[in-house]
């Protein structure tokens, strides 16, 4: 059954952005972003450097607030919500720079992510250790001693333990070796089976293996959207907006 008809989703979106404008200092980064993300899917934001992908994530989180437009989460207006309110509403965020807390142990990083620390959150750790076994080995070590790939795994796993209805993950493959990227793809596909994901990704290999839908941003607004399986074969579109031959 087609989920897109005339450019509009047929089911209620979990996240909806309408005419969102965002400035960073005097720079007009987002220039009217319109986007509807469906629940239970893995949606990828694609585009060249500076297109506004990461700013879109930060704007949704309230870290770089929108100056104009509206953002709705499950129908609730979160345009003016503060970052902690967006997180409490069920949105998890893995920023581009991993942002694990180096001075805390791996265990403490997980406890930090458990907003409501209870038995359910600890039960989710079993799944996390299956997905990221290295984290169990370094459980008591400071997160600062982990390798780049392990830090990225910790950042993603930390967001997963929070039991969010929507996960925003910004460039998880950045700086990682291809073999680690492949492990990450498996893990993200597992997580995508439990929650809605929005992924910002420059690595098209990862984007196409995780995402089911996509949005392409260019110059601060959405220029194309659709199903990932169609984009994989659309060489002209990939060449035009992503620079992929």
């Amino acid at each position: 059954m087609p989920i897109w008809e005339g450019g509009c989703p047929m089911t209620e979106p979990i996240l909806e952005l309408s005419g969102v404008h965002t400035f960073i200092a005097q720079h007009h980064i987002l220039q009217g972003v319109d986007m509807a993300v469906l629940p239970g899917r893995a949606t990828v934001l694609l585009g060249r450097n500076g297109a506004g992908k990461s700013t879109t994530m930060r704007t949704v989180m309230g870290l770089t607030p929108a100056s104009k437009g509206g953002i709705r989460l499950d129908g609730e207006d979160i345009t003016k919500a503060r970052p902690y309110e967006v997180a409490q509403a069920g949105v998890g965020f893995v920023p581009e720079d991993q942002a694990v807390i180096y001075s805390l142990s791996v265990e403490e990083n997980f406890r930090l992510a458990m907003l409501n620390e209870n038995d359910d959150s600890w039960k989710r750790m079993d799944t996390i250790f299956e997905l990221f076994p290295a984290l169990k080995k370094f459980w008591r070590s400071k997160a600062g001693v982990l390798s780049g790939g392990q830090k990225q795994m910790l950042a993603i796993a930390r967001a997963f333990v929070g039991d969010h209805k929507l996960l925003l993950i910004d460039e998880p493959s950045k700086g990682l070796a291809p073999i680690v990227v492949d492990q990450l793809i498996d893990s993200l596909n597992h997580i995508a089976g439990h929650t809605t994901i929005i992924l910002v990704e420059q690595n098209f290999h990862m984007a196409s293996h995780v995402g089911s839908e996509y949005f392409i941003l260019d110059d601060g607004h959405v220029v194309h959207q659709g199903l990932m399986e169609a984009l994989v074969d659309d060489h002209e579109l990939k060449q035009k907006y992503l620079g992929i031959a």
Partner: protein
Amino acid sequence: MTSQTASLAGGEKPALDMKQVAFWVVAGGIWLLPLIWIDPTIYMVLTVAGVAMGMLLFLTAVGLTIIFGLMDVLNLAHGAFFAWGAYVGFTILGALNGLGWVETGTLAQSILSVAISLAVALVVGGLWGLVVERLIISKIYGDHLKQILITVGASMIMAEIIKVIWGPNQEVMLVPAAFTGSYDIADVVINKFRVAAIVVGAAVYTGVMAVLLKTKLGIIIRAGVENREVVQALGYNITRIFTGVFAAGAALAAVGGSMWGIFREQINPAMGEENLIFALIVVIIGGMGSVTGSFLSAMMVGLAFNYVAFLMPKLALGVNILIMAIILLIRPWGLLGKE
């Protein structure tokens, strides 16, 4: 903690740091060095006095190091919170003395008198902290120059309010009966209030470290120091948490002031500014933001002061400056501060 975490207790542990071991061996050697010139009994008397003084210095400085280290706020109003704690303690002890609890009270009444005065000082200091953080500090996060200027201004206003309420003159602080005099244990004479100072200082250190290292709040605070944005994105209202941290720092300063007032048996409106210097020295030696660093630094200053005062009385007053100068030359970031 659940069984899940317990089962993970066997995870990889960091290797023993030989540099730290060497540091502690050298520190222990320096500590025992005065025994070459001092009789062991006198050495014990001086050591207890030094530890007690160190605890009082720690109580003076702990709030400052928490506020600076965790929130990156240069709070020069710290001395004013300290002075307010002393005056609140003075008022409470005066009121309890009216009930016969202080100068003529039993051991239990003496302990209760100190406990109540410290508790009220804690609350008043915390309230002052809330007011100062909300009205002033919250608007100047990240701007050290403004923090210095504005907190000095706040300090002056708070000291003037003390003069308005309690008068500009020096006042005599009552000492509860059970804390006057000394214990004599095998010729080692120990002032009774010094024992109380050691107990309170150790309790505050243990409490602060327990909160920081063993509680969820401590994890959030430590994470907030490193990356405030991530902590917010994980669902915590870091602004509210940091307001609480500032209030806690101010409250601890007030407890320190109350204890210091009883120890010195006198208070005056300028005592905050005088003790701010000691607090700054302790924090600089210990390393900005390190509670354990401030604890060790305070002990070092307290012990060195007492040993040097016995061996070379004229040098005693300058010994803390000397220690600070040496530490700044060897480790400019302090004993346990971050480089």
